[in-house]
């Protein structure tokens, strides 16, 4: 709870900074602030309380994930220094929005009541709309914002409808109560339908097939930093929330009672297979790196959905997978930000010869791509390993085999980028070594490898 308040406060401070003309200090201040918040969050570790007659329910799950979100936000804020160099007047707004977005995310994973859940989603989404469209004069950015906005609010409508049906079925918005009712013998059909609608809304947020169409366009159109945010923070928040939604409401047991479990599992299996397959295959022929990463994000969403099949045990795996994926994403995007700073697009051609001009960054990007592809010692591999292990245990061998085939396909496009970096001649000289970008890249990569070497660190938090 305090975390949430602190974050919101921090956001407001950022706005104040603008008024007080302290732009210079804003990035360091925010980072410090976020570190403070992180500490605060750690202090709440393990405590399971609920505040404001259970509007917010802090739990191990919420705290751990919140800390992940905070870490990611720190990285993103750090990156924004270099990114917004050219329009200093807006920096505080953007940073503030990111902070609020974080607040929305935290609210989403620690909701104790559908009201909070809905507000969280909306805070997150609205901030994202703004960020997506933040390059006012760039038509691409506008288009991205518009598309995201239209589809987003459409999805919100669906979610709202779902909530409404649940309310109709249960007569309450409170998770605890609903979870109790949901175990009762017979439920009105509205409950599963409502749940499904909400789930669909969340599937839209995590960009799972067939609700993924927005992602590539929006990722491509939005400013690179926003893309980074969407593909890491937003995605992680969404999947975490989806997980919490299903687990906290005893949705699975209730389905078991009504013996609809198979139905639900089939839906998840189909969607996750579709997501990874479509994502990977579509990514193969992309020339724009942001777009490519968008599709790879879709496929990863497919992987993450596999955790829903063994909901009771897979929290730790989900946490591990999301952190691995997000860290790799951050590392990758920090390099993308550096390389495409003054380019008007993010095509692969911009990366030619990076291995010669900036070996370190090239190595880091390679590392993060290998991690996403699931090559050992990078945490991405272990994430996949645990996920597969989990899923086979739950008895979905076929799904795992499909997943394996997909990871083979995925290597194809990850390596396209690596090849571009190492086997092509540099076509431009890249000057300057922006400290923050290097810092973020190095730290996130290090974290990634550390996670790979000692997976238990994260894995055991939620087991």
């Amino acid at each position, binding site marked *: 709870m305090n975390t949430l308040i602190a974050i919101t406060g921090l956001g407001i401070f950022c706005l104040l900074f603008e008024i007080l003309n302290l732009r210079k200090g804003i990035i360091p201040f925010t980072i410090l602030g976020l570190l403070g918040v992180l500490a605060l969050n750690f202090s709440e570790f393990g405590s399971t309380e609920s505040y404001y007659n259970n509007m917010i329910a802090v739990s191990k799950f919420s705290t751990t994930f919140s800390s992940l979100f905070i870490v990611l936000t720190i990285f993103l804020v750090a990156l924004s220094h270099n990114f917004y160099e050219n329009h200093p007047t807006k920096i505080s707004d953007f940073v503030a929005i990111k902070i609020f977005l974080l607040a929305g995310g935290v609210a989403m994973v620690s909701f104790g009541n559908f009201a909070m859940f809905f507000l969280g989603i909306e805070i997150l989404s609205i901030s994202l709309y703004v960020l997506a469209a933040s390059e006012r004069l760039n038509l691409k950015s506008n288009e991205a914002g518009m598309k995201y906005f239209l589809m987003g609010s459409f999805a919100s409508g669906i979610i709202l409808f779902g909530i409404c049906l649940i309310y109709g079925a249960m007569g309450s918005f409170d998770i605890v109560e609903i979870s109790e009712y949901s175990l009762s013998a017979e439920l009105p059909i509205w409950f599963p339908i409502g749940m499904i609608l909400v789930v669909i809304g969340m599937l839209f947020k995590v960009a799972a097939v067939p609700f993924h169409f927005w992602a590539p366009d929006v990722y491509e159109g939005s400013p690179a930093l926003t893309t980074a945010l969407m593909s890491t923070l937003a995605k992680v928040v969404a999947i975490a929330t989806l997980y919490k939604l299903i687990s906290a409401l005893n949705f699975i047991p209730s389905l078991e009672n009504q013996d609809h479990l198979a139905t639900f599992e089939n839906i998840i299996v189909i969607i996750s297979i579709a997501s990874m397959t479509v994502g990977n295959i579509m990514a193969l022929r992309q020339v724009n790196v942001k777009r490519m990463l968008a599709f790879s994000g879709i496929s990863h969403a497919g992987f993450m959905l596999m955790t829903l099949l063994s909901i009771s045990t897979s929290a730790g795996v989900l946490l591990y997978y999301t952190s691995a994926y997000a860290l790799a994403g951050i590392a990758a995007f920090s390099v993308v930000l550096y390389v495409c700073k003054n380019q008007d697009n993010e095509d692969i051609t911009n990366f030619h010869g990076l291995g010669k001009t900036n070996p370190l960054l090239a190595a880091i990007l390679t590392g993060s791509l*290998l991690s996403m592809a699931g090559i050992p010692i990078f945490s991405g591999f272990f994430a996949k390993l645990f996920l597969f292990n989990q899923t086979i245990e739950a008895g979905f061998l076929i799904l795992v085999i499909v997943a394996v085939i997909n990871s083979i396909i995925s290597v194809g496009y990850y390596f396209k980028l690596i090849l571009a970096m190492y086997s092509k001649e540099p076509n431009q000289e890249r000057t300057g070594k922006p400290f923050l970008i290097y810092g973020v890249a190095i730290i996130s990569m290090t974290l990634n490898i550390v996670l790979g070497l000692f997976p238990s660190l994260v894995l055991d938090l939620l087991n």
Partner: protein
Amino acid sequence: MNVSLILIILLIGAFATYLVGDKLASKVALFFSLAALGCSVVLTNHFLAGESISLINAWITQPKISFALNADGLAIAMLLLTVALTPIIIFSSFGNEYKNAKGFYALILFMAFAMTGTFLAADGLLYYIFWELALIPIYFIALIWGNGDSEERRKAVVKFFIYTLAGSLFMLVAFIYLYQKAGSFLIEDLYKLNLSACEQLWIFLAFFLAYAIKIPIIPFHTWQANVYQKAPTVGTMLLSGIMLKMGLYSVIRWQLPLAPLAAKEYMNIFIALGIAGVIYGSIVALRQKDLKKLLAYSSLAHVGLIAAGTYTLTIDGLRGAVLQMIAHGFVVVGLFFAAEVIFRRFETRNISEMGGIRIQSPKFTSMFLILVLASVALPSTFNFVGEFTVLYSLSQINVWFAVLGGTTIILGAYYMLKMFQHVMLGDKNAKTFADVTINEGISLVVIIAVLIFFGFYPKPITDLITPSLETILNVINKN
């Protein structure tokens, strides 16, 4: 004696090599590889003294993965092969100038590290991790320092990487499945499993895919020739000298004991595949224009025979296979190095542009001839010992296997001598061919010495590997 020391040396070596910069890189790399060699020799002595060389540290709690290394005779033999070849390979590259040498040599050491780990790992997942790790460096070595048209090279290398990765990922699934059954990745726990015939079949196939691509057994060899041709010779040596053996070793260590029923059931099919590889490889090698490609196909043939030997599931087959692995490791490295020596002078790998070397460089010719003869398994060379044992074991299964496999004796002689004739003999070549330098000489002589010594006295190795092979056979025959 802590077995992980060797791994640490190699890993540190890799980093050190990268840090000291291009000037010293090669020297430092050589130093560390020699250090590893020395260390392994000490280790071997400890082992022969009856000490059991193994360690188990818990690593990941859930799922239960432990950092477990275990060096039995077999593993030590392969370890020695690796750490003995690495310095030779590094040393052999001294004649060449590589841009960004530090990266190059660091990658070599790192690959040696990964392969050593593969041979030593006693935990399924640890083994898998090393197995995959070994793939990354060779990929970059071939990609960045390779030769030939870069577009072609890129295609070949990417194909190689994805293809091999594809194979091994199924192995990963198999491992996870086994873990579900055994509750641990530790090899002894996996050995204890009693799986149904059907399960074993699938597991066997999953492993087979991984190994058949890596070894390679036909028809999964399509990556091989191109990569051998495109990779820098050092990379080719690493691939053919050690990495292929990874696959064969894994067959013995993992595939057969984990799925013995399947192995017995379908033994003949897989032996036949191996032998088909022998004949096919030899025949294709006949008409190769590119020296490295020819050698690639010849090693396809030899490796096929080795694979056939392993699948016989007899002590002779396994023993012969291991002997032949080591022998082939050395001889193939020697041959590829010889090809490199020629390339350094003639700037070509095209056989038709060679010839008339013997006049100009008798020393080199003699060495090359000895290598050729070793690779056609002339008695009194190490390869003969291995090949004889393998063929004998095949003859015990079915004499026709021996006959067909034995065609390698004829066809091998045919293409190798044909190659020798057109590369070395004939009248003076327009291009001048300086005789081998000291460095080149040393590498070649060392290899030849090994081949001939063990050709007459393979006992040390035989005694080293036999007990562990017998234990593995016991596991295979336990039910």
